């Protein structure tokens, strides 16, 4: 099915504006996507009609808010194909989801000389929590190398695995390169040595169909705001038996069963991991974002984005001085590049002057940039509402910018 992009663009008020006197072209979707009107309405409706604290209120508003909040949990369950809604925990974002696993699962099940495996292309949020844990526990961090196209060396990965491996934490799709990792194979290989697997789904969940039961991953972390949903909200999926075996993360209200000064017993999952009043409004509005994706379907969305990426590759290639970074066979719609002789900040600033929003710099993946021997890249990342004519405008702009230094 091909999508009616004009109609979809009509659902996103933010797209219809000028910046620096030029129509906005928003290509920073891997940083955060824009929000459809339905998400904005859901936020406004919640505060305008239903605002109340959830789960313990003895009144109509609290009942409504609780119902909507739990409906989103069910929608997320369906979105990732989890067995039950209790396996869905709301967090602040992917970063918090990963830290939650490090601080609870990690502290309990990872000890001295145990090994954690990550890849060269991880975001800092999937590096630093494990370094902190390794420092605390005397565990060891192992790194999967990558090739020049930005793909992991699977053979090298297998060599890293041993009975010492307790966890493999790997990005599903790279934020800096777009590479889609062969996570199914990674999970099977990790499980064969008894290791658990955490997937960083921050960049994959908006493009790829994901079924955690088929994949058999033990954890999946992702953020709502990269999925057309609100900021400040993330998800951690975990298998029930693992979540139950994990100690709580934060202590406080909601996460307890009974508190006495002598001893506190903890609530059931998922509430054990949701201490304090959660981000109710954003959770409720997130359901509208998931409905938006469901309405069009990820295969159709991905087909559109893939076509944009292919068109971008084609139109940028002839630009003198254009250097693509990350040329994996399997990619989500991320085009990372440099212009010969220019710093990515300068290119980004010049594109901004043309109304084109991109990301520049190291993309929170400094070890990956080091692997490629560069300081950073310019990154254009496409979403469902982007068009070929926008890509053409970027190509024209880049050609002009590149002439500045590549005369």
């Amino acid at each position, binding site marked *: 099915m091909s999508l009616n992009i004009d109609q979809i663009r009509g659902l996103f008020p933010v797209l219809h504006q000028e910046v620096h006197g030029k129509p906005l072209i928003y290509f920073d979707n891997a940083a955060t996507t824009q929000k459809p009107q339905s998400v904005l309405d859901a936020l406004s409706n919640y505060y305008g009609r239903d605002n109340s604290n959830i789960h313990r209120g003895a009144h109509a508003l609290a009942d409504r808010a609780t119902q909507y909040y739990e409906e989103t949990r069910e929608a997320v369950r369906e979105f990732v194909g989890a067995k039950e809604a209790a396996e869905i925990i709301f967090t602040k974002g992917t970063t918090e989801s990963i830290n939650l696993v490090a601080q609870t699962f990690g502290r309990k099940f990872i000890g001295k000389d145990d090994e954690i495996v990550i890849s060269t292309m991880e975001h800092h949020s999937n590096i630093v929590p494990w370094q902190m844990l390794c420092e605390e526990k005397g565990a060891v961090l192992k790194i999967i190398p990558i090739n020049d196209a930005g793909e992991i060396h699977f053979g090298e990965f297998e060599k890293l695995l041993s009975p010492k491996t307790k966890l493999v934490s790997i990005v599903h799709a790279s934020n800096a390169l777009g590479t889609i990792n062969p996570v199914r194979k990674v999970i099977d290989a990790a499980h064969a040595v008894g290791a658990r697997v955490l997937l960083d789904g921050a960049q994959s969940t908006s493009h790829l169909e994901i079924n955690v039961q088929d994949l058999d991953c033990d954890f999946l972390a992702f953020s709502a705001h990269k999925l057309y949903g609100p900021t400040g909200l993330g998800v951690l999926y975990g298998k029930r038996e693992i979540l139950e075996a994990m100690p709580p993360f934060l202590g406080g209200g909601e996460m307890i069963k009974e508190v006495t000064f002598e001893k506190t017993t903890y609530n059931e999952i998922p509430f054990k991991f949701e201490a304090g009043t959660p981000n109710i409004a954003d959770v409720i509005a997130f359901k509208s974002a998931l409905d938006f994706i469901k309405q069009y379907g990820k295969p159709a969305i991905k087909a559109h984005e893939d076509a944009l990426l292919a068109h971008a590759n084609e139109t940028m290639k002839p630009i003198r001085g254009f250097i693509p970074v990350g040329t994996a066979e399997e990619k989500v719609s991320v085009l990372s590049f440099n212009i010969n002789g220019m*710093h990515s900040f*300068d290119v980004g600033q010049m594109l901004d*002057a043309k109304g084109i929003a991109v990301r520049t710099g190291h993309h929170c993946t400094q070890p990956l940039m080091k692997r490629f021997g560069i300081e950073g890249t310019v990154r254009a990342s496409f979403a469902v509402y982007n068009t070929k004519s926008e890509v053409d405008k970027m190509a024209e702009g880049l050609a002009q910018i590149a002439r500045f230094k590549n005369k």
Partner: protein
Amino acid sequence: MSSIKDIQEEIVSEFEILGDDKESTVFYIMELGGSLGKFPENERKEENIIKGCQSKVWLIADDVDGKVHYQADSNTDITKGLISLLIRVLNNRSPEEILNAELNFINRIGMGSIIGSQRSNGLSAMIKQMKLYAFAFQTKQNA
């Protein structure tokens, strides 16, 4: 030599010609970056990097016959352009002049909206470091 005030007026009128067109302004700033003198390679070291800038900026200063002589460089062309403006205003002046300088051209040309708030912070860090050098030379001269 024109006064600090006069040079600032010059810069403001140059940017006025560019008007509100951000594209020409950014290109112009990048062109200006090309006018920066060559920075000594042996000074391109960690201790000469200005903290608080998003891009890398190296700044050194010498006391040449009582006047402060600045040399700077950056890894990005836009930042080089911004530095070249600061150097144009402040170079080869006495520490007193530099310390008393009121750099109003930055606000007057609307630099904040041209380069964004993060780069504006970096620009403030550069000015602070330039004034710190002037203060150090003044202290030495008065000793």
